[in-house]
């Protein structure tokens, strides 16, 4: 089996797990957000590579005569791309909300390091 034939899928797996790892282990909130963004992008890469085709072009048919059948092997599937446009928009909005929350946390605690923030919340409870 040729491992390189599934190069895109390996990249998806690597990026997804890398993003997840960053979300779990990073101590800085911005690093967590970057991890989240990488994780979402890996899913987008997965969909786009589903529709990738060698020597294919966009499925716009210029002149249709009734006799020549349309050659599907040279047309790329447009649906995954259309879906991913929506998913990119969703990802951007999620990123926006996450950044707003991070800024708001920074304004409250003057820090973006998670252990420091947790210490400050504990102090607020006891003091």
């Amino acid at each position, binding site marked *: 089996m040729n491992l390189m034939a599934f190069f895109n899928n390996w990249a998806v797996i690597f990026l997804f797990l890398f993003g997840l790892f960053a979300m779990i282990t990073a101590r800085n909130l911005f690093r967590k957000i970057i991890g989240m963004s990488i994780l979402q992008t890996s899913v987008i890469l997965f969909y786009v590579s589903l529709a990738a085709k060698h020597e294919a072009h966009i499925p716009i048919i210029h002149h249709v005569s009734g006799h020549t059948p349309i050659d599907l092997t040279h047309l790329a599937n447009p649906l995954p791309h259309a879906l991913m446009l929506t998913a990119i928009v969703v990802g951007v909005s999620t990123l926006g909300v996450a950044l707003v929350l991070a800024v708001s946390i920074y304004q*409250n605690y003057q820090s973006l390091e998670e252990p420091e923030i947790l210490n400050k919340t504990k102090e607020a409870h006891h003091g």
Partner: protein
Amino acid sequence: MVESLVPILLFLTPFMGLLVLPVLYKFKPSLTGAWTALTLIIAACIAFKALCLADSGMIRYTMGGWAAPFGIEWVLDSLSAFISFIILLLSAIVAISIIPYVNRELSKVQLTFHMCYLLLISGFIGMIMTHDLFNMYVFVEVSSLSGYALVASSRGGESKIASFRYLLIGTLGASLYLLGVGFLYANTGTLNMTDMAERLPAILELRSVRLGIILMISGFAIKAGFFPFHGWMPDAYSKTSYPASCIIAPISTKVACYALIRILFWVFQIPTTLSQLPILDILTMIGIVAIVAGSIMAFIQTDFRRMLAYSSISHLGLIAFGIGLGEKTALAGALLHIGHHAAMKMCLFLLAMYIFHAYGISKISQFSRLRGRAPWILTTIILASFSMIGIPPLAGFFSKWYILLGALQSAQPVYGIVIIFASLLSALYFFRIIEQSFFKPKVTDVTRNYHSRLGLLSVSLTGFCLIALGILSPWIFSWIMHNPLAGF
């Protein structure tokens, strides 16, 4: 003709209400809460009409007139009508009851608060109605994003941290779901639920199809707060503002439960087709662990809303358990429990909001301040806790009873013990509240800070509704058995 538009009308009513809000706020800021409530009441009336319509048959609405397998289709059947009626009715009641408290707690942000509320409900209706798997993802994110904003609505940093965690975990859940949809799309070439249900049985042996199924289910398990994925719930429910917790806590996880039921039984047709993949057994197991662990964690909490959050985890475990038994009675019981648990949690969170504003009670040890003071509140505490424990004729008893019946009819009747054990454990943590508010020495010098008649009325009315809901339960149950679950 209007009938065919009902699925989209249910979505458009809150959404159009949301678009009117900024204009209304410019001219008459005091009416934003009332307008939100009015929109949701109208939507709830349409949902009731939808429930009557769905009895006589499905209503399919195709977006932009593109026919079903290619275009996006919204379907109103008796299951989606049932769940959307529960969601809209409860959110309308909450919208009325929180008006004075939003003015008191969140008056500066009330426009964005109400806009997020209506957007959240529109997103939920989209999730419930849609028959397209990718469309479902979009609405999951629409409702989640407004949910994060609502969780962050309280002043101070803690609610922001809770919301940030909720956002990270929720995004992971949605991404897992999207990845799973990608696997199924690659194998079947369709995103329409009916179409996919037809094509899946032939290719279930493929490893990539199974991986897709597992990814989708774990995505929704995160959104529904099922046991190993429940970490976001306690903070999100207890650190946020009181009105926001009344909105988020009763309904947000229930819609994810519905989505899980929809894809498990309508798209994958689990009991008949997937006997080799033990998804249902795993759901039962995590349900049992959640029931026990959630109750124990609820018992050791000191904060009232945090205790309610852990109690939610335990009751969601009960729903997962009912789904996982894969048996018609238990599934109907789980659907009934989705409605009943939402009603009970709404009652308890409204109560938490009232007593915090009136007597400053947020910890369980402070409940003794209530003794001999607030007769209606004390009655509601009794009604709601007895209903959560499962004492007849209150609502909580019947849903547990039907899940128990289902467990006894299933392959492992031993599981029935779990339900009885669950009731005992709920009794354990709810008796702490009853003990504090009835058997502790009377506290003198307690003053009532902020009293809202509307708040008191809504708390006691929802408490008494639990009795009515309990008495109506057998009838609702037989309706569920004959309508949404008729095909089993």
